[in-house]
């Protein structure tokens, strides 16, 4: 390859990156931060931004599972209930013999992964539409919560959980570190393994994927299993950050995870997208929420402002390419 060729290549590559959706979303986040720090006192403080990213970590981790599911052509409406079940259920797994607190965490993650696998089972084998299957799963979990919520009088005194929720190794909140690890793994799995390629194929057309030999049923189950695992992980972090789980702790993460995915440029129809977009998407959502909080206005106006901001940002970043 000649030198000029290399030059053209890198220039065009820079152009693809700069015009890509994830980058655009990142640029918008930066823009909102800069504008907000001028408009609102204290907004741009390092500690505040760090806190926002910490909050975004939870949405981002739930959105990681959601991104997998959406790219594979589904949607997971049970993530909120799974987050709650994880946060509320963790103390039930407390074992005195394990002072590290790792066993309950592993048990909860295993449980939420199984919940996700059941979602996948319904979608792949019963052929129930993902929206219906996961909505029904959320309903089941509500029933489960009635049974387990407040069932034990134990407080969540799990050292590992409170470390994840509160510690700041190297000045970075542990939740963010977990998110970084999750992000790297997710991006690699999504874009650099055959498994990732199968997801995109399934989302773009399940029939063509099936006839090309993609194991549809197992892949579907894996995807929902991952989503369950991620929601469980988020539940543990949220539990650590709030010191105590409660029913409803997961509620904000359903719409937030979907919004982060779509704001990040992943097609809700499946087959196209990247988690690299969901990451700034999650930060963006948290930022707007924080911005609205410090605005002095009646609840009605705040709600209107919030919706309008999302709409405007969507206009900047969210054009859906023509399909079909």
């Amino acid at each position: 390859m000649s030198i000029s060729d290399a030059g053209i290549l890198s220039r065009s590559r820079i152009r693809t990156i700069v015009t890509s959706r994830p980058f655009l979303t990142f640029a918008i986040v930066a823009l909102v931060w800069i504008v907000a720090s001028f408009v609102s006192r204290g907004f741009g403080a390092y500690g505040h931004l760090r806190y926002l990213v910490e909050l975004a970590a939870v949405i981002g981790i739930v959105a990681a599972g959601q991104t997998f599911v959406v790219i594979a052509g589904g949607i997971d409406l049970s993530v909120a209930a799974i987050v709650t079940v994880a946060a509320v259920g963790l103390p039930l797994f407390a074992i005195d013999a394990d002072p590290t607190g790792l066993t309950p965490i592993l048990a909860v993650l295993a449980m939420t992964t199984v919940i996700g696998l059941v979602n996948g089972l319904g979608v792949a084998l019963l052929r129930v539409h993902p929206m219906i299957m996961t909505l029904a799963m959320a309903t089941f979990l509500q029933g489960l919560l009635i049974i387990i919520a407040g069932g034990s009088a134990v407080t969540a005194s799990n050292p590992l959980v409170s470390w994840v929720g509160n510690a700041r190794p190297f000045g970075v909140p542990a939740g963010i570190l977990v998110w970084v690890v999750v992000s790297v793994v997710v991006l690699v799995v999504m874009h650099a393994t055959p498994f990732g390629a199968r997801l995109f194929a399934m989302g773009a057309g399940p029939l063509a994927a099936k006839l090309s030999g993609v194991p549809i049923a197992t892949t579907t189950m894996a995807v929902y299993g991952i989503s369950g695992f991620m929601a469980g992980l988020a539940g543990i972090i949220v539990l650590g950050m709030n010191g105590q789980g409660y029913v409803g702790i997961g509620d904000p993460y359903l719409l937030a995870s979907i919004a982060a995915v779509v704001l990040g440029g992943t097609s809700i129809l499946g087959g196209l997208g990247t988690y690299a977009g969901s990451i700034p998407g999650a930060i963006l959502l948290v930022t707007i929420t924080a911005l609205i909080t410090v605005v002095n206005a009646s609840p009605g106006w705040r709600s209107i402002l919030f919706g309008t901001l999302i709409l405007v940002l969507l206009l900047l970043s969210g054009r859906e390419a023509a399909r079909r």
Partner: protein
Amino acid sequence: MSAPILAARGVSKGFFGNPVLRSVSIELMPGRVHALLGENGAGKSTLINLLSGALRPDSGTIEIDGQAVGHHSPSEARRAGIAVVQQELSLTSSLSIAENIGLGAYPRRHGLVDYGALAARAGAACDLVGLHEPLATPVGDLSLGRRQMVEIAKALYRKPRVLILDEPTSSLSATETRILTGLLERLRAEGVAILYISHRLEEVMRLCQHVTVLKDGTCTADRSLEGVNAAGLVRLMVGRDPGDLFPHWTSTRTADTAIAISGFSAGAMQDVALDIKAGEVLGIGGLVGQGQEDLLLGLYGAIPAKVASATVNGAPGLPANVPDANRRGLAYVPADRKREGLHLIHPIITNLMLPAFARMPALKLRSRSAERETAMRLATQFAIKGDLGRAAQALSGGNQQKVALAKWMPHDPSVLLLNDPTRGVDVETKREIYNMLSGFAASGKAVILLSSDTPELVHLCDRVAVVREGKIATVLDHGELSEEAIVAAAMGAEREREAA
């Protein structure tokens, strides 16, 4: 002769800066069937979209009755009496035949769709094309061939002065093709201007009086067809002397069984017995929609199948599912490439690599350079035109078909299940595909070729199993093969009924 009804004058069109048509002109005369020929991707469909207002030219003009039209749109084209049968079916599956035929041009009474008038007019259009299903049948219940007839009826319903047909026969049976040919003759006699695109040159020879040939977006010929033979047509298209379309047939059939089944039932197919040898090309013929596809899908593990006994590549039993079939050396190329063969929104390279992704260990790290190398090799081998990083959407129909076939080659399958692989494929590509098939059989592998193109069956196959109403009606040996024999076997039932 009279003046053209519809004409394009020096039109150019590009997509994302890639020129697809360069200053092309064409004139459609009343009472003339005008052929538009060219290789896959030459720009035929694009030209049609310009003529019908679905796309706007970047430069040049469209003229109707000698008048240049400014803002040409589909509804305006319809008012001017231009009707198009698109290459890609776009019927609405949940609407009835009648509602599909009238779509966009419903007769009204008091602001409502006038179902009485619709029944009369759509019924008349259906009669013209020999479509006898009840008008209330949802289009989703029809086979591909019948849908194509609905699409043609939809064009006729508009009582066109100009009728444009983009590969209308690619999914039609011989009978349906005959009906269409007769119909077009009649319309021509009534003074309709017809533009006809087909990769089946015998049809063109039989039907058309004039030809325009496109090559890489430019017009290379615009002349009367009088005195031109098939070889001449190909010469016009590819710019050099054509060889034989079909490779010379020699049997490479061996004694080793590739697939043997008995008591096989899947979908519409009942109680089938077949024995396919390595090195054989087995044709599957018959009228469209008799269950042939279910035979392939059942063998491939894609739909549930029952079997009394089966051997596939030496191992007993049918594949349990598609991955199992792939492991056992089967590969399947579907007919409906848009829905079943490819992911149109994904890059060509991803499409080419999908079977590999499906078989590699799920979490092994991918090597982009190795993928690129494989894809480039396949693209060269199959002469796939186009940037491998671009979405498969941007490929012409024929090139898409090549991708759907090429993607299996890295796996070196020992049994190839082909469902109408040359549908909508230009002659040159057809020749390439035919050569590949015989080469494939010669290397000791088995090919099952389901085709609606009867000459293909005649020239390529060791044997042809003709399917009728879910059963294998006849198996013809190569020596007995002729188009007439296949059609006769396919029509058997009707013959008997007529005789009675």
